[in-house]
């Protein structure tokens, strides 16, 4: 480094050497200017030495400053905030942090701050901001300036992003003196704001249906409690079949059912009504300024929309109860309770009807799958009733057999149609899935309160010798109706086309098969009677 600086003074050093050589000459020592010349050379030599050192010091100080500047720039550029300054001419300074360019999408040096903070064309706002900024610069004390800064806008929206604006009044040393500048700190708070909005939304909404939740309705109570909201009607609704859907088709389908109800109710109420997911399968509708008639009209619309909704296997069904608050003497909570009581009472009255409605929907769903057609069910019903006659069963057992003939394979609505209708043989995994239809059917019958039928459905693939599924029950541990049905079901399966069998057996061949598996798969007594019935039928024919 020293050598580099010395190169700058080659000519000066050469001149110094020549001057020294002149001083050494004896002839010049008599010259009257000699002593003055000698002194001048001394000063020149010192000046040269100092200049050389000064340049080196200055360069090293420059490196120091440059490093400090880079350090500060790195800090500012990586602070995640925009920093810029502008003076009273409102022109942005040369130095600003990288975030400013990201926020404004361009270089901003020498731009007018008003152009950046005010949308083009908004002349009134531009004038107002210019006046407010002018007042800051005119303020005489820092305290006064800080007060004035509070009048400036604290947020701005730019291309869908939210920017927080903070201002500082700064006295900036610019060499020739102190200048007043305003430092503007810009923080992109879009994500923070979106998160806050999301949190606010989630705290007041049910995430599954998008409807309001209880917290929201609680927050609205003071408003709803006002006289001008009366008559205030409440509709309380309880979804039918949610447990069945969850048990049979899984919770995803159960969630879908609730979402469908949310759609149905949303499409049936007035714009001013509040719909709330009140609990697991309960919905609440708050109808401000709606009398009992208006509330009942909404209920009718909900029932109608349920019927018309293009439902899957489980049709939409809901029990509704309404109550209306006509006087502030009755609390809102009491009105809620009345609506709830009515809803439960209605649910009790409609229990059987709603079960039949849901079961009917399941039957239709099974028929639509193409696997279990009505002819098969009719044949089975006919066969089991004949067996019932010969076995001299009670009326209750006869009804159970008839129900079992209709619903023994209802669990297949929970099995993929592609597996059920697959031609040819199934893989071990597919067989395992198909076998689950007994358990699904069992849960379905249980959820609608048909417990004996449920046990029979669960057992209709058990074998007399204990080699069946799902529990490996043996002999008379298998419910009677299941033992009867399994014989008729096997005969019908063998004698009709199935996805896995394109050439059905003749009735006599099928009877031989029954005979063959008598005592292993089937109860011997029932097979014997079944064969007798069929042989006598064929003689009669």
């Amino acid at each position: 480094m020293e050598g580099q600086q010395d190169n700058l003074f080659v000519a000066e050093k050469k001149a110094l050497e020549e001057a020294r050589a002149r001083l050494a000459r004896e002839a010049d020592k008599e010259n009257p200017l000699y002593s003055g010349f000698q002194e001048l050379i001394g000063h020149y030599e010192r000046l040269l030495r100092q200049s050389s050192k000064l340049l080196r010091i200055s360069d090293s100080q420059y490196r120091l400053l440059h490093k400090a500047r880079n350090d500060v720039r790195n800090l500012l550029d990586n602070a995640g905030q925009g920093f810029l300054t502008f003076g009273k001419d409102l022109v942005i300074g040369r130095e600003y942090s990288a975030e400013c360019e990201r926020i404004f999408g361009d270089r901003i040096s020498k731009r007018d701050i008003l152009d950046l903070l005010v949308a083009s064309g908004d002349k009134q706002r531009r004038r107002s901001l210019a006046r407010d900024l002018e007042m800051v610069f005119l303020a005489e004390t820092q305290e006064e300036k800080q007060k004035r800064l509070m009048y400036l806008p604290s947020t701005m929206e730019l291309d869908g992003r939210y920017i927080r604006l903070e201002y500082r009044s700064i006295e900036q040393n610019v060499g020739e003196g102190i200048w007043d500048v305003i430092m503007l700190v810009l923080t992109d708070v879009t994500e923070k704001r979106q998160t806050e909005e999301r949190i606010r939304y989630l705290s007041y909404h049910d995430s599954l249906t998008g409807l309001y939740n209880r917290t929201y309705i609680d927050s609205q109570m003071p408003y709803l409690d006002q006289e001008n909201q009366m008559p205030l009607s409440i509709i309380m609704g309880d979804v039918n079949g949610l447990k069945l859907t969850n048990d049979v088709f899984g919770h995803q389908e159960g969630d879908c059912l609730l979402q469908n109800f949310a759609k149905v109710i949303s499409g049936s109420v007035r714009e001013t009504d509040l719909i709330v997911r009140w609990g697991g399968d309960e919905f609440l509708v708050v109808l401000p300024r709606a009398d009992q008639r208006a509330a009942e009209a909404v209920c009718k619309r909900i029932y109608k929309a349920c019927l018309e909704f293009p439902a899957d296997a489980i049709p939409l069904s809901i029990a509704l109860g309404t109550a209306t608050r006509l006087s502030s003497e009755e609390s809102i909570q009491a009105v809620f309770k009345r609506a709830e009581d009515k809803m439960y009472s209605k649910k009790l009255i409609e229990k059987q009807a709603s079960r039949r409605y849901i079961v009917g929907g399941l039957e239709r769903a099974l028929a639509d799958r193409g696997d279990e057609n009505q002819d098969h069910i009719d044949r089975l019903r006919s066969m089991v009733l004949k067996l019932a006659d010969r076995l001299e069963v009670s009326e209750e057992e006869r009804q159970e057999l008839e129900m079992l003939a209709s619903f023994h394979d209802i669990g297949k609505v929970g099995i993929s149609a592609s597996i059920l209708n697959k031609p040819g043989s199934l893989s071990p995994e597919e067989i395992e899935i198909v076998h689950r239809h007994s358990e699904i059917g069992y849960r379905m019958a249980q959820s609608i309160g048909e417990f004996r039928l449920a046990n029979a459905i669960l057992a209709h693939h058990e074998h007399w010798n204990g080699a069946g599924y799902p529990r490996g029950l043996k002999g008379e541990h298998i419910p009677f109706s299941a033992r009867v049905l399994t014989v008729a079901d096997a005969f019908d399966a063998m004698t009709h086309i199935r996805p896995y069998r394109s050439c059905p057996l003749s009735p006599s061949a099928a009877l031989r098969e029954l005979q063959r598996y008598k005592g292993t798969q089937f109860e011997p007594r029932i097979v014997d009677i079944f064969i007798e019935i069929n042989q006598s039928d064929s003689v009669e024919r």
Partner: protein
Amino acid sequence: MDRLIIEATKLTPYVEFDPQLGICKLVGQFLPENAMHFFEPLFAWVQQFLRDLQKETIFQFTIQYINTSSSKCMMDLIDILDEAYCNGQKVSVQWYYDEGDESLFKCAEEFCQDIKLPFEIIALKR
């Protein structure tokens, strides 16, 4: 002789020359617009002080940044001290810099070139 104390500003260093203690301090950054205007009273004080100096005195400099014209004045100040030392006065310099700051260290090395005055460069631990 009286102590010389000048408070620091944004552009000039803190000055504390204490003849009784035998310590003369300059601490801060040297960015005066007119370096000579800042240094003149310092030169006057030092020259007066050196005339009557009996005891050993240390000049302690802690410089964060120094502009070019101030560097020239600092060289003159060091030359004055060097000349006094060569004339038998017991003066020395301790130059402090932030440990690890190479530029400040090199700057100190430049100032101590071509002089006989004891000149110690001391790193300040962070």
